[in-house]
């Protein structure tokens, strides 16, 4: 009977002040969606880093007029270098072939470039991509070397952008969470006020504190859980609209977010939504009911 009483009080409570309940649930949902999105991006960025940094290369371009002796000397040095995993030599013909492949949609560009004008290069993989600076210092003044380019510099820029998007989502989640907390506190105050007579009688006849507080706290928790469910729906919709449709062209570029990832992030959203609302409600009641 007591469980049934508490549950029916929760539903009555949410319904009594339905506009406020809806406002509370919506802010909660937006905040939790942002939280979930930022969590997903965190995984996404991690996966992408693994994928890209593993395949990253440093290109050492040689002067077009490099002599065979110079080239062999550089190759010897590179192959003996303990920082380097492996070395591939791309000669002029190979470079032109790659160039043709890369720009096959732009035949004008291809016909404008002579086979002979592309520089030969070494493509090297570092044991540790962070040690690019050492390689650069060591080889930049070597005879026959024209330029050294590190692909990870480009990736860093891309990842910086992704990280800031993620931080913005997280900040939005926090700001919305503050709004949600204030709404929860307000809703609980209104609920406690509208039940002040019942609460006074319960305190008078010696109802236990948990029994007095439970309907209010659960009301907030239910709102938090509904909010997290709506957040889940929003993430599923976002995945469907973004990844299955508009961004599907970038399929190979972005590591995919699976449905599993989204289901994995849901307990986090529900947990944060439920616990934060419960805590807020409980603290509000301590001030407001003094139980």
């Amino acid at each position, binding site marked *: 009977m007591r469980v049934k*009483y508490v549950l029916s009080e929760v539903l009555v409570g949410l319904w009594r002040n339905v506009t406020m309940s809806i406002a509370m649930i919506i802010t909660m949902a937006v905040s939790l969606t942002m939280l979930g999105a930022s969590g997903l991006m965190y995984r996404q960025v991690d996966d992408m880093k693994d994928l890209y940094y593993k395949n990253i290369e440093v290109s050492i371009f040689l002067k077009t007029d490099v002599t065979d002796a110079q080239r062999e000397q550089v190759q010897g040095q590179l192959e003996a270098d303990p920082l380097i995993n492996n070395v591939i030599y791309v000669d002029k013909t190979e470079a032109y072939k790659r160039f043709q492949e890369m720009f096959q949609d732009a035949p004008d560009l291809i016909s404008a470039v002579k086979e002979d004008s592309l520089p030969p290069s070494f493509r090297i993989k570092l044991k540790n991509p962070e040690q690019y600076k050492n390689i650069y210092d060591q080889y930049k003044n070597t005879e026959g070397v024209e330029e050294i380019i590190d692909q990870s510099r480009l990736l860093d820029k891309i990842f910086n952008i992704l990280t800031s998007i993620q931080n913005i989502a997280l900040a939005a989640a926090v700001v919305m969470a503050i709004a949600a907390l204030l709404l929860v506190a307000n809703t609980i105050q209104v609920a406690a006020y509208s039940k002040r007579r019942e609460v006074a009688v319960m305190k008078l*006849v*010696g109802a*236990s504190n948990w029994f007095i507080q439970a309907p209010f706290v659960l009301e907030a928790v239910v709102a938090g859980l509904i909010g997290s469910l709506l957040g889940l729906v929003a993430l599923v919709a976002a995945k469907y609209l973004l990844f299955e449709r508009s961004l599907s062209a970038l399929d190979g570029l972005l590591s995919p977010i699976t449905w599993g990832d989204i289901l994995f992030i849901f307990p986090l959203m529900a947990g944060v939504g439920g616990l934060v609302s419960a805590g807020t409600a409980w603290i509000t009641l301590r001030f407001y009911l003094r139980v």
Partner: protein
Amino acid sequence: MIQLEQVTKTYPKASRPSLDNVSVSIEKGEFVFFIGPSGSGKSTIIKMLLHEVAPNKGRVVVNGKDVTSMRSWKRPHFRRSIGCVFQDFRLLPNRTAYENVAFALEVIGKTKAVARRVVPEVLELVGLGGKEHRYPHELSGGEQQRVAVARAFVNRPLILLADEPTGNLDPDTSIEIMRLLDRINRTGTTVVMVTHDSNIVNQMRRRVVEIESGRIVRDQARGVYG
């Protein structure tokens, strides 16, 4: 049953203490009036017995338990042994007489079956047989106070505290309520009543403790209002 030992209470910002070195001992089964003008400190005593207000000095013992040192989480269980009636009845307007009394049982964990057995019995006892399903606004003031007494007594408390229970009632109705409290007292329940209704005190001829400016000025076994 109830001991106040040299109890002093000064509310914050008050110029003089509400209770000043008050000592009273009340035995099991007694019926005691606390009388005195408004602001004399009578209601502070009721609040102390309910563990709502703590004394600054002295000791309050209720039912063998030292209320002074009681932790607040023990308060709910402690209150179950005390019934309480007020001037303003404090009934729930959207519940019937039966539901008001049953509510008090159910929120302390009694089942609906227990309520169905006990509530009609106690409503009969207070003289409301047949009016179980009336709402408070359908009852007279005296009848509402009877519901409040039924709610206070349904759990068979050892002590019944009454804070000006007749303050809102006309003289005839007041006397009926007093007869009811007297009957409850005869079952062995200790009754402590705060009032400034001289008529009632004079008619009942029970122990009277008079308080003035926070001090006991009279404690008489079969007293009158004076």
